[in-house]
């Protein structure tokens, strides 16, 4: 029999029992829809995180004091004092794969301007920092190395500080803000970066020369962090190794002993995200496989019932000239049609749900052609696999017995 007639026969048979066909498809619909939704959401969140990471800095390398172990218990690293100004200076002077480097000395103080005040976190940095972290100036200028040397009382402020202190719209450049008891002159205003993935406001920030913060605020000599840019993305691993060697030498760490600092590259963080994503994808695939097996068993079950119910019909078809193969193909076609239509409906529902959820979460809407194509193929395979035995049983019926079946 040709394909045209075969499809006509199978589709008519399905249409004769629409209600059951829909119920049979339900398992596949739900399975595929949830897989499509989850894959899409997973990808859009990964995309989001990657965007965020690359906007965090250029070929960035972060050096922080190591977690200090006390009797096996990991303590916070906020009190760790292993990074010093000397480390920063050695890296700046000697590291060949490092193009920019800046220390970070953090403190916080109440910012007061006129009648307004706002709790501000102040980061003591070198002028390189803005390039490393991809901060840009909206107005004004960057403070200079000279300002650093002279621990000048100058600062650069973020948009949230502007909004909270300069409520009347005056130009912040040249204004003097008092931080606690220290007055500092505003030389620059940053372009807004907005909130990050963790919901932190990246505009609620004040930058000042690290010398100024060390001398006038915290009175400490160690650094909270050192941030650097590698000369290129490819060389960031080399840069990290180089930095590690410099710091081990500086800190006089014997070979075999553990570092008292930690070095992360942006690429490492990215690859961590990637491996998390891969794990997630594997998990989703497992769920997909299970839901499709469940859906497929549903199809198989109904196909068996259908074959039994339609024994008389099968007998008749054989009597009027259907070959075994025609009967086999009819039932296979029916089960594949069920699973494919179920799959298509599932894909549509899945895409709609993913769109709704991602716009609700404010994430980008990512459609993966791969997952659609894969779902489609898996559905076809499910239909063939789970339709095979019922179809085989139908084809092997004896026409004389089948036609008498009541």
């Amino acid at each position: 029999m040709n394909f045209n007639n075969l499809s006509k026969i199978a589709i008519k048979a399905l249409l004769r029992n629409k209600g059951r066909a829909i119920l049979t498809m339900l398992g596949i619909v739900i399975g595929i829809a949830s897989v499509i939704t989850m894959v899409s959401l997973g990808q859009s969140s990964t995309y989001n995180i990657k965007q965020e990471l690359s906007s965090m800095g250029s070929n960035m390398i972060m050096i922080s004091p190591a977690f200090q172990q006390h009797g096996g218990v990991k303590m916070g690293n906020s009190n760790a004092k292993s990074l010093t100004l000397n480390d920063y200076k050695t890296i700046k002077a000697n590291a060949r794969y490092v193009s920019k480097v800046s220390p970070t000395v953090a403190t916080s103080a109440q910012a007061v301007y006129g009648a307004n005040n706002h709790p501000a976190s102040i980061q003591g940095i070198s002028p390189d920092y803005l390039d490393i972290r991809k901060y840009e100036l909206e107005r004004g200028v960057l403070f200079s190395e000279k300002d650093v040397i002279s621990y000048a009382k100058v600062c650069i402020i973020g948009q949230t500080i502007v909004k909270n202190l300069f409520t009347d719209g005056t130009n912040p450049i040249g204004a003097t803000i008092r931080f606690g008891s220290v007055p500092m002159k505003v030389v620059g205003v940053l372009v807004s970066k907005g909130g990050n993935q963790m919901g932190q406001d990246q505009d609620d920030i004040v930058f000042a020369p690290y010398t100024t913060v060390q001398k006038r605020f915290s009175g400490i000599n160690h650094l909270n962090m050192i941030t650097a840019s590698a000369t290129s993305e490819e060389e960031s691993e080399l840069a990290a190794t180089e930095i590690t060697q410099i710091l081990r030498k500086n800190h006089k760490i014997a070979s075999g002993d553990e570092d008292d600092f930690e070095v992360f590259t942006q690429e490492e963080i990215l690859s961590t995200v990637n491996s998390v994503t891969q794990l997630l994808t594997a998990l989703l695939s497992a769920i997909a496989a299970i839901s499709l097996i469940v859906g497929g068993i549903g199809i198989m079950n109904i196909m068996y019932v259908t074959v039994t119910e339609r024994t008389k019909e099968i007998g008749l078809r054989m009597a009027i000239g259907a070959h075994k193969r025609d009967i086999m193909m009819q039932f296979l076609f029916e089960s594949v049609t069920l699973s494919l239509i179920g799959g298509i409906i599932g894909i549509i529902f899945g895409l709609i749900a993913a769109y709704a959820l991602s716009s609700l979460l404010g994430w980008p809407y990512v459609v993966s052609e791969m997952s659609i194509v894969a779902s489609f193929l898996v559905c076809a395979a499910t239909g063939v696999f789970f339709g095979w035995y019922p179809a085989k049983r139908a084809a092997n019926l004896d026409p004389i017995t089948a036609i008498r079946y009541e």
Partner: protein
Amino acid sequence: MANEIIRIENLRRVFHVGDEDVHALKDISFSIAQGEFVSIMGTSGSGKSTMLNILGCLDTPTSGEYIIDGINVKTLNNNALSTLRNRKIGFVFQSYNLLARTTALENVELPLLYNHEVSAKERRERALAALEAVGLSERLMHTPNQLSGGQQQRVAIARAIVNDPVILLADEATGNLDTRTSYEIMSLFQDLHQKGKTIAFVTHEPDIAVFTSRTIKLRDGHIIEDKQIETQSAADALANMPVNEES
């Protein structure tokens, strides 16, 4: 014999049930010529259906020869038998066997769907012609549950003749119908016979067999009688039936 459609020689059919052999047909020989209207008679269990299944190539003899339209079925495999049924045989069953929720027209088209030499257009034309031949041109789009038993059997007869078979095989085709409707169906068979169809009609009712032109009586798998008979007209029998009285 001129234009032999069916020839059966020393045909036996033995069923094996457990350790027992059931001899359903024992050394049967006969022929059917083109244009004959044969009834196969006998009590229940005499072997009528077994005979008809073999004639219809649904079953094959244990031994002996069966030649239909010059083809010895012994030489055919399953697929060839299916194709032969599709091209040369028309079946009418006691319980109609129409596809539910399917229109009369589509039911009649069904055998031609399994013949890829017939185009969709030709299929439709032939189905319409067959339904007209059984007097159901007004019921094309009716589904079986919208039709009476007699009408359903007419659809089944249309389906049996749509492939223009060399022989029409009916197994107790009036078994589910009342007397009046049975006569109507027999009248239809007589019409088809008039138009040249060869028919083998299984029945255990003698008053139905009188409408055929030859009766073959079976008992215990043997032919006990094979004779030409005076054909009575089913149309006349209908006309003579008392009106307003159900049998």
